[in-house]
């Protein structure tokens, strides 16, 4: 039993790193804005788990959860505004609309 926490710590830390990598991949590579925000939340909770697994103080965990929550809220707001302005939440459609807007502006 004494060795159990010592075994759990590296397992939790590995799981935390895996969550951060998964979330980061989703947030950076997926084209759908909703899935990107979901990736941000996964990565954030991975980081929080890492803090917990590696023995960070309670205040650090609270701060981390607060950060993830705020990111999620702002992410939802940006998604709603994107849907209102572009009528889409897919990155290729949004980029295409921006390119068209820019070409129109650059015309003399």
């Amino acid at each position, binding site marked *: 039993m004494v060795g159990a926490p010592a075994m759990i710590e590296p397992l939790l830390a590995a799981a*935390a*790193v895996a969550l*951060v990598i998964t*979330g*980061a991949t989703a*947030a*950076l590579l997926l084209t759908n*804005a909703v899935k*990107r*925000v979901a*990736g*941000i939340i996964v*990565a*954030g909770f*991975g*980081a*929080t788990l*890492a*803090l917990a*697994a*590696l*023995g*960070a*103080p309670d*205040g*650090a965990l609270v*701060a*981390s959860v*607060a*950060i993830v929550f*705020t*990111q999620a809220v*702002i*992410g939802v*707001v*940006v*998604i709603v*505004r*994107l849907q209102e*302005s*572009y009528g889409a939440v897919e*990155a290729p459609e*949004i*980029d295409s*609309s*921006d390119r068209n*807007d*820019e070409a129109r*502006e*650059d015309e*003399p």
Partner: protein
Amino acid sequence: MSGALLDLVRMNAPLLMMVIPFGGAALMLLNGSARLAWFIACGAAVAASVVGIDFAARLLSGATPALAIVAPQIHVDGVGAFAGALIGLALVLAVAAIGASLKDAGVREAPVALALVLCGAGSWIGALMAGDLIALIVAVETGWLAAVGLVAVNAVRERAPLNGALRMLSIGSIGTALMLLGAAMIGRASGGLSLEALPLAHISMINLAGAGAALVVLGLAVKIGVAPLHAWAAATLGRGNAMVTFGVGVLGVLGAASVLCRFASYAITAPEIGAAISAALAGLGAVSVVVGSVQAVGARNLQRLAAYAGVSQVGCVLLSVALGSPAGFAAALIQLVGFAAAATAFYGGAAAGRVKSLAMLDGYGQRAPLASAAIATGALSLMGAPLTIGFLGRWRLVEAGVGAGWWWASVLVIVASLAGVFYGGRLIERMYFRRANAAYAGDGGVWRVALGPALIAAIVAIGIGFAPLVLLRAADVASGMLTGVAT
């Protein structure tokens, strides 16, 4: 009575530098008038700036200021005091310049946008005074999310900034997750999260601590927009209005770069992990100088060009910090001042005439001579032309690099300057040696409110190039207090 009040203010200067912008932001949100909000923002910015400059001047003149211990999370050092005062000064110029573009943000949104600019600046100053890693990360994230909010709020007349906001949120949040992961690793390896204790800590797991510090550096590099992590910069700054360019392109980049310098000053002086951090910073800096310069040469949009030139300039800052010596940190601080002056002059000159594409610059020297002078000065400083502050910073980097045997860093600085001659020269040629494009000939309405700060920044960029002694001395003293000051 007033003497006692002054002493009280001075004793709490580090805290007030953070609190005043937040107080101003709260006041702005209570009223719906854009103009009144702007006056409040100006007042808060000037107050924070005066407190910060007075504090830095006392500290860097060799005095040992008495400080009230109000919170253990506050820790003062040379880099923090120097950069905090610099951000305060940049905030004053930014808020003053923004006054001309309140309508661009929308009448209802302007107070919120101004409040976010102040919150961002207060947060970056907070990160420069943070005593432990978690406080630093929370402050950095507050500043970053304020910047994301600022970009999103300014998407009323132009929807493109929303795309930039999404990219900032995606990339920046991953940067934050990496910083938290890095902090957890450092805490586990060194037994604590205090910045002050890091250089002297007995690090039991060197690889874990080194990886953690590298992750924190990477997370901060994302917020600065260091290449190749700058995918958000072009989308955000390319078509943003003056609030976005000043709030994110000047204050955000300056704040994040200052915080990275400060964190590096603690991590790089820890003997077990210093070499790894130095290598990581040097790699990022070198890539940033090359990629930023190449992209700036190829840019067709003025604001994107300025953003890429800033990426190259920040690369030089990272190279200076990577040296790890007091001379390197002094060079980094001078380059931060140079970046703030050049970017303010550049963006201010562009905002004054609402110039976005390079084609709109044709004949700008005749239509708007003062705004053109500001842009030209910013470009000359960014390219490191002699008798500008840009030259001074790069010269100090070359000196420090050669002293440390880093000849390749000197070569990179020369490459950055040569690229600057291309893109800066192209701007100057368009402004002064071409006729105005017929389509834009009548579009030369220069807002004096926007132009004043740009001209002040341009004068500073040239003036310090002629009389650099005060800045050189301040940077040298600040870099001698890398890991804190006795109070």
